[in-house]
């Protein structure tokens, strides 16, 4: 496939989504980007979705289903904001603390996985419950609020979000495409038994995967906390909702990944999702309509993805 065609296919979906959403807005007589706030809303949505998509895809691609991503974001943001408020630190130290706690919680979750050697989905159920309970106990149910702290709330600007997005992309590309860990990860992904027999240390690799996923969720927790200035507690799997926002971008990213780097594919998938979210905002769509549209988009794209040959041959026949 030539470079040009490859580039075209890579950009196809995000451009298509951008054009369609703009047309819909225009049809309703609303401009998509009226003020810089809309750009901020778009970029914040991209940052949120891309971090969850990367975190989930690290483990899901190697067949490890993970319910605990949401609870790691919750607990790491609770811990980091508690310390930040206690010592009056600024947003950057809070982000650093959030990343650190995310990493540690991810490593702990990975450690439990490699010691108990149970299916990852079961481990993540236990870990999600545990982290939610711990966050609730630490804040005694109140969660944390810092809406008066202008400095922390001030973090949410377009440049800051762009920096986080770019750092996440670079982090993923380097960690998974350039390092020895990345090489071993890809080998384990598609040939687990052969890779382990040859001598790749699977436990160490899995631990780093969970650590990296935790790190990313730490950043996501920080972003959602500094967006509203408050962290709501949730119990009984209240925190797993966020992972469902990552499925459509992950499948879009997987499709785009065939034509270029899959990390870039996930990012473009997240950008497409952000355009859709912005459309919901601009048209003030109520939440039940929003849910139906998102579900139909997910199923629609999956139907295309899993029946591509049939659809293309049908398409060729009719033309």
């Amino acid at each position, binding site marked *: 496939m030539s470079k040009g065609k490859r580039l075209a296919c890579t950009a196809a979906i995000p451009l298509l989504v951008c054009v369609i959403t703009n047309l819909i807005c225009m049809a309703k007589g609303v401009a998509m980007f009226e003020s810089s706030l809309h750009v901020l809303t778009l970029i914040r949505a991209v940052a949120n979705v891309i971090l969850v998509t990367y975190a989930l895809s690290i483990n899901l691609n*190697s*067949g*490890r*289903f993970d319910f605990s991503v949401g609870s790691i974001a919750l607990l790491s943001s609770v811990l980091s904001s508690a310390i930040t408020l206690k010592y009056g630190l600024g947003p950057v130290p809070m982000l650093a603390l959030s990343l650190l706690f995310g990493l540690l919680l991810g490593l702990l979750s990975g450690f*439990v*996985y*490699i010691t*108990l*050697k*149970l*299916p*990852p*989905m*079961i*481990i993540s*159920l*236990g*870990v999600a*419950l*545990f982290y*939610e*309970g*711990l*966050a*609730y*106990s*630490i804040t*005694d*149910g109140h969660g944390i609020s810092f809406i008066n702290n202008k400095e922390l709330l001030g973090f949410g600007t377009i440049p800051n979000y762009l920096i986080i997005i770019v750092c996440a992309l670079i982090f993923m590309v380097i960690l998974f495409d350039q390092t020895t860990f990345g090489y071993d990860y890809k080998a384990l992904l598609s040939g*687990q*038994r052969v890779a*382990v027999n040859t001598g790749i240390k*699977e*436990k160490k690799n*899995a631990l780093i995967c969970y650590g990296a996923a935790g790190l990313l969720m730490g950043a996501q927790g920080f972003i959602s906390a500094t967006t509203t200035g408050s962290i709501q507690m949730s*119990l*009984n*799997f209240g925190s*797993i909702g966020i992972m*469902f926002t990552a*499925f459509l971008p992950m*499948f879009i990213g997987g499709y785009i990944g065939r034509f270029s780097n899959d990390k870039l594919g996930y990012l473009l998938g997240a950008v497409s999702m952000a355009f859709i979210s912005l459309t919901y905002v601009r048209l003030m769509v109520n939440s*039940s*309509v929003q*849910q*139906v549209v*998102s*579900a*139909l988009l*997910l*199923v629609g794209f*999956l*139907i295309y993805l*899993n*029946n591509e040959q049939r659809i293309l041959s049908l398409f060729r026949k009719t033309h």
Partner: protein
Amino acid sequence: MDNEKILKREKLRRMLFSFAPAAGLVILFALFMAFAIAQDINIPYSLKNILNQSVIVIVVATGAIFIYTLGSFDISLGANMCVSALIGAMVYGRTESLVMMLGACIASAVIISLTCSVLASVFNLPVFVTTIAMLSLLNAAVLMLIGANGTGDIIQVPAEAVSSINTIQFKLFVLLAYLAVCVFAFSFLKLGRQEKFMGGNPVCAALSGLNNSKLAICAFALAGLGVGLGAFLTITYAPTLSRNTAGSVGMDVIISIVFGGMPVSGGARSRIYSASIGALSMTLLSQIMLMMNLNSGISQMVKAVIFLLVVFISMNDGRKTILPR
């Protein structure tokens, strides 16, 4: 050590492992009784209460075992139950007949469950993603149903209409009847064996004449039946339905099945009774937590630790050289 002795030990160990969940249940029951006596609570009422709270999850989880045996996974059972209960209540509103309500609950639950499996098999989508999409669709459907019914945020069935059947005897009857159907289908019909075989090795199953989509449809239909009965029991237990009805059932079913020792990948080691053991154990655990009057955060942490411990002991055969997926 000669061959025979090792084989015996091997067989004994596997048998013991399959009893770990049951042992977990017995130990939890013993602890519950210890706390109950220490705090001098009304034990008969509490036991009735435990059954009342578990019966709905047992019915839905036992039905869901047919889906898990095939190695697939359904997170939208709770949402399905909510929609079916709302439809059942609306049907009662128009027909004033409990039988019609029961029929409506079961019919809508089975149809919803089948659309999920048909969607997955016709468009060959991965089942677990289809159920996630169904979850959003059903949540939206709930709001629309409530809106259409026009009675504020709830759809109600008059309490006296269901009070006659809101009894332990009726619930036990429904539970045991449904369990009998499931145990019969699972252990005495071709369906059960074929599903266990398909869950273990789909390629070999196909080459032994088993029809994957037929088995999937039967599995999702039986699970739908379970969800329909669960919806009916929910209405009888609490006849006021809202958008949050059966909110936690989706995850409770997964936890109960896994806690009962059922392998997540299904196959030959699937057991029909693991749902009942798991559901009862989880309810007992919550009762114990309540009696200790812990703050809800700590009690959820204790629940998480015990959940991982029991599943670790019942599932870990220790010989795995590569990490499970």
